[in-house]
């Protein structure tokens, strides 16, 4: 029983950055602890002896739990260190296996940095990459992808849920179209797992990246779904002992893996109910913020993941806005790029100007978020935006 989930607690600062990372669910911690204590399941799961077999059984149980959430086969799950590695392995591995000569890749301008930087690296190796521009609401339509195909297109990489604005791509419609054309589809589902329905028994995605720490599991562990029928083939990016069907060598970390399994098992059970609750919190926040004039909601409310709300505030400067809200843990842009202080490239791709992109906040709600937290956060944001607008030389 999660002691935290049913208690209307108030955390300081109010954490509204679940899209950056989530706290470990206490039930996940409980599942992990036996593997971290002396004489627990400490053995190398590749070892051929009793303790090794027991560790291996724990790893395989977790593999089945992760597979179940996305309705895949356990043998289609490859453990990695996280979504960044999964995305690297999927994109570079697929291209290297095929041969990069004259290869063409299609992706979007609003992918996570680790997809974009992987694609840019491939460009230095001779791969041609098309970066599709999303519409003003942050969606790349399947038709755009199909129009960009060339006879050399080897791979399409498109995220299921955008991490900054929460838009949900129509992967269910895109995947069959690409299958028909024989083009591999990789999907970064780090933000999607447990938040939108993923059924890979019905949707012909070839490669799909997953992360544990976005889903109340531990940091440092992720997975890549690699379809077996038809077989998606990858060249390994990590060479060594031939672990994970030769696709990702390195001794497995059973405590992390068991944590991811437990986290995904909870998502499979509670995800749909949680999504309804989170959507309601997101809309509550948006409705409360609207007591301020001149706001812009970034993304598409009709194709929105339950946990993300991204808002631009006219007439205020971003750094002052964030400094005014020390009691709120929110992001401007994604956590991975906000350190640079540059306006979000995702919001720029949507056509927002630099000033508005800079004056944007990403709120993301999660398992421990409460209505009291949402109301308190909204009240603080409204008060501080109003104060900064009063001071602002650009606001009349």
């Amino acid at each position, binding site marked *: 029983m999660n002691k935290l989930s049913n208690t209307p*607690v*108030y955390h*300081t600062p109010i954490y509204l950055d679940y899209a950056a990372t989530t706290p470990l669910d206490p039930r996940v911690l409980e599942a992990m602890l036996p593997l971290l204590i002396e004489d627990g399941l400490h053995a190398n799961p590749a070892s051929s002896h009793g303790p090794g077999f027991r560790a291996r059984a724990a790893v395989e149980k977790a593999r089945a739990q992760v597979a179940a959430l996305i309705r895949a086969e356990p043998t289609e799950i490859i453990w990695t260190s996280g979504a960044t590695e999964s995305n690297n392995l999927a994109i570079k591995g697929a291209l290297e296996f095929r041969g990069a000569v004259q290869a063409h890749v299609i992706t979007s301008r609003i992918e996570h940095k680790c997809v974009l930087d992987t694609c840019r690296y491939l460009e230095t190796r001779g791969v041609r990459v098309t970066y599709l521009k999303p519409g003003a609401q942050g969606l790349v339509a399947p038709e755009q992808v199909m129009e960009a195909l060339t006879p050399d297109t080897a791979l399409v990489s498109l995220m299921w849920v955008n991490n900054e604005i929460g838009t949900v791509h129509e992967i269910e419609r895109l995947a069959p179209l690409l299958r028909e054309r024989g083009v591999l589809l990789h999907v970064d589902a780090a933000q999607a797992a447990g938040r939108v329905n993923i059924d890979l028994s019905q949707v012909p995605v070839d490669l799909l990246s997953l992360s544990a720490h976005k889903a109340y599991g531990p940091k440092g562990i992720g997975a890549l779904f690699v379809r077996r029928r038809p077989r998606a083939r990858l060249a390994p990016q990590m060479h060594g002992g031939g672990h994970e069907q030769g696709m990702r060598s390195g001794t497995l970390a059973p405590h992390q893996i068991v944590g991811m399994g437990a986290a995904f098992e909870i998502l499979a059970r509670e995800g749909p109910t949680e999504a309804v609750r989170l959507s309601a919190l997101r809309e509550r926040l948006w409705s409360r913020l609207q007591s301020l004039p001149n706001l812009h909601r970034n993304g598409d409310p009709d194709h929105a993941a339950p946990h993300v709300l991204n808002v631009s505030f006219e*007439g*205020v*400067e*971003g*750094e*002052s806005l*964030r*400094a005014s809200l*020390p*009691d709120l843990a929110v992001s401007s842009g994604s956590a991975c790029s906000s350190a640079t202080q540059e306006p979000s490239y995702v919001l720029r791709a949507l056509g927002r100007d*630099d*000033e508005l992109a*800079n004056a944007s906040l990403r709120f993301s709600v999660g398992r421990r978020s409460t209505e*009291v937290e949402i109301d*308190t956060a909204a009240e*603080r944001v409204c008060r501080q935006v109003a*104060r900064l607008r*009063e*001071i*602002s*030389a*650009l*606001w009349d």
Partner: protein
Amino acid sequence: MDMQSTSSNDANAYGYPPRIWQLFQQAPRAGRFEPGTPGVVAGKAGTPAARSVLSLEMRFEQGRVIDARFRAYGCPSSIAVGAWIAQWSQGREPAELAALSAAHLRAELEIPEDRAHCALMGEDALRDLLANIKT
């Protein structure tokens, strides 16, 4: 639980220099004079594209500043610069105002190197205001 008691909205979570943080938080003299107020001279510097705009208004009587206001769009340092100049200007003559330099502002507010442009904007806004006295 008393929600207010847990609030620590005064927290300088990003580690701004104390004087900048204080002026940013309190923003004394933020705003502008009623249109038509006699003796008011205005000056402005910065651009929205650079995400920094500072607007100063000073009310002169018998050759001295008797009141001042500022408005700023920008980072906490630029808001602090506006607030500091508006306070500091009280009772001063144009010649004294003209002597204020960006270096002086940086030293007073402990403005770090990467925010030196905020001090320059303060100096520029003040110079613009002084130029408007002469015309």
